[in-house]
């Protein structure tokens, strides 16, 4: 069978999967973000430089996640229907993989074309001068394409070789976070080695900010080819690795049979049923590791900027919770809620569940489990804060409202839990709800920035945990908004589960 035919089959498989539509939505989200934040704030003559400066930063977050999700969708269809067993009888693993890779490359090409179009559209929308040299658009397009292909080369093998798609999506999200944060650190050699950061490090627009006059000015310099070359090396490296692995791969049982010790007696577990179903799943680990990482980064950041951060314990808290609230916590809640529903979405388990338990009990059980682990995690955040504060011998008194912050943070996180429990119930795909949580973190940030923090669950959580705005927070309005969100999401989930036909064999 020729490669062209394989590719044709691949496009057939993705009928009604709306992959391009998802890419279009990503582009739309970026455009909205630009329009919402910078409308009428930039000098039209250097507007195009402004776009070439800001779009790569957003690509660093949005494209990374979009491509991780896309790669996992490419493979998910095979894993779900156990199709690899069948495909291996028609074709070789190498052909199957590269047909997908090629299909991915074509889709990414479309994505990049859409982005170039969106830059021109943004110019028109924001009233910028669009008569900039075309070569910049071409350079931007080519580098973006190469970087996207690098990410695909990393993500697709992960999605291919590991049935559990949580791994590939987690690596994608982690990569984008690491590169995003690295942008706030001084430019370094290491940063240029990270493929996710290459969107920005390969850029040709620079920002010159004068701290005395507080005026920022964009300027163009020669594009830095080094990150692009590194990316090409990544592509080659991952392709070689993939080829070696494909050579050895075959369809095997997902886990080798392990002979386990036999018990003659039946010993019952004491765990609540929702936790029993997650036995052996590593989903909960993130709730303890991620806050630890965040605390470490926060403490280091605090020590590095001690000259600016003069509020002692209070400043340390803001450093600890900044990234955790906006980005990490929504995503790990999303992953946990995804795992907790995934066990039911598998095979015909929904039949089993629905004939044995009331929908309300099911939803509340899963919600309670998610809230429980999230609350423990937030208490852990507080403990880490106190520990690291005492390690660095922080002076002064603890902030008086600490306990209130924690309680509000927990209530705020419960609204996110409710949202994710609903979304993961309705969307059977594992990855999409996590991407929604990721985008939710941004929406929360935007709502906080716009001064409307009571409008989304994500901004409620940010409001409670990150204390920059808490002085202005209205506790009763906060409580009211939280109760409304939790009630609406949980009721919607119960109604959905009670009245919608049970669908299996998706």
């Amino acid at each position, binding site marked *: 069978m020729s490669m062209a035919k394989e590719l044709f089959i691949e496009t057939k498989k993705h009928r009604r999967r709306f992959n391009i539509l998802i890419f279009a939505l990503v582009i739309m989200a970026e455009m909205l973000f630009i329009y919402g934040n910078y409308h009428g704030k930039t000098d039209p003559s250097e507007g195009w430089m402004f776009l070439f400066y800001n779009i790569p930063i957003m690509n660093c977050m949005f494209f990374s996640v979009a491509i991780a999700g896309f790669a996992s969708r490419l493979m998910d269809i095979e894993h779900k229907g156990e199709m690899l067993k069948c495909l291996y009888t028609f074709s070789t693993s190498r052909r199957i993989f590269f047909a997908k890779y090629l299909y991915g490359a074509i889709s990414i090409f479309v994505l990049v074309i859409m982005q170039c179009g969106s830059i021109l559209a943004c110019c028109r929308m924001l009233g910028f001068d669009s008569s900039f040299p075309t070569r910049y658009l071409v350079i931007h397009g080519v580098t973006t394409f190469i970087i996207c292909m690098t990410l695909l080369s990393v993500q697709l093998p992960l999605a291919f070789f590991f049935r559990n798609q949580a791994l590939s999506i987690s690596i994608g999200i982690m990569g984008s976070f690491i590169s995003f944060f690295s942008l706030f650190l001084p430019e370094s050699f290491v940063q240029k080695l990270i493929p996710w950061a290459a969107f920005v490090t390969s850029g040709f627009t620079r920002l010159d900010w004068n701290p005395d006059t507080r005026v920022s000015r964009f300027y163009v310099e020669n594009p830095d080819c080094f990150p692009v070359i590194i990316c090409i090396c990544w592509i080659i490296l991952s392709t070689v690795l993939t080829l070696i692995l494909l050579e050895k791969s075959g369809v095997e049982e997902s886990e080798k049979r392990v002979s386990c010790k036999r018990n003659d007696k039946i010993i019952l577990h004491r765990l609540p049923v929702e936790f029993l179903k997650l036995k*052996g799943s590593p989903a909960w680990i993130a709730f303890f590791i991620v806050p630890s990482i965040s605390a470490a980064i926060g403490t280091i950041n605090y020590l590095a900027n001690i000259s600016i951060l003069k509020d002692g314990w209070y400043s340390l808290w803001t450093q600890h919770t900044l990234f955790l609230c906006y980005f990490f916590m929504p995503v790990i809640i999303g992953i946990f809620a995804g795992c907790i529903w995934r066990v039911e979405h598998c095979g015909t388990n929904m*039949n*089993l569940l629905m004939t044995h338990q009331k929908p309300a009990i099911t939803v509340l059980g899963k919600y309670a489990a998610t809230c429980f682990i999230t609350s423990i995690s937030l208490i852990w955040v507080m403990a880490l804060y106190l520990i690291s504060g005492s390690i660095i011998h922080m002076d002064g008194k603890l902030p008086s409202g600490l306990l209130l912050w924690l309680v509000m943070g927990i209530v705020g996180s419960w609204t996110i839990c409710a949202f994710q429990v609903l979304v993961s119930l309705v969307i059977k795909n594992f990855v999409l709800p996590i991407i929604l949580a990721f985008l939710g973190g941004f929406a929360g940030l935007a709502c906080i920035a716009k001064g409307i923090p009571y409008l989304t669950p994500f901004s409620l959580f940010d409001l409670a945990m990150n204390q920059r705005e808490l002085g202005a927070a209205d506790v009763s309005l906060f409580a009211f908004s939280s109760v409304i969100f939790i009630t609406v999401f949980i009721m919607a989930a119960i109604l959905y589960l009670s009245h919608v*036909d*049970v669908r299996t064999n998706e």
Partner: protein
Amino acid sequence: MIKYVTETCGLCKSGGKGYRVKDVNLAVPKGCVYGFLGPNGAGKTTTMKLLLGLIQPDSGTIEVLGQKMSPKTRFEINSRTGSLIETPGFYGHLTGQENLEIITRYKNLGVDDIKEALNTVHLYDRKDDKVKNYSLGMKQRLGIAMALMGKPELIILDEPTNGLDPAGIKEIRNLIQSIPERYDSTVIISSHLLSEVEQMADYVGIINKGQMLYQGRLSEIETADTSLEEVFLDMTKGV
């Protein structure tokens, strides 16, 4: 007068372009083994899902164990039934015993019920293995064990002998035949294996392309010179 445990009236469910099930009037007498026959895609599974309230009918009514089926009563009715629909549902990363344990939590049963269920389907030796490592037949046995737990009044089994070896098929056949007496329950079993149903069922219902073609005692359909197979093929070929 015969007492029915399950009765449907004008049951319809559309799907895609046409009807998956159309005007089905099912009547299952208490204490019998009811064989539900039909070719692949005839609407057997859809009907069984409707009986369990897993999907909602477009029109028609369903009465199970004396109660009208609706999203509100579904749980109450299902707490008195046991079922195995399509392929068995299970949590692959858990052991067989842990899977049954989840069912005992739902149904408020105890250790003895797990033990009995494991022994009934001969999985006691493999109870500490993860279910994803079970063979197809063992998964099927586990599914049957789940359906039988708690001795429900109505047991609905969708092609229960799928994937079983000949000895297993015979075992399950004997088991199903003994259920009405042992548990004082009624069994609805769907199959396209005519010989199986012929040996187990007291009543049969034949469905094709979503419509009921025949319902009644097995003894009435089979005469001296025609077998169930001949009748079945005759009924389903022309429609």
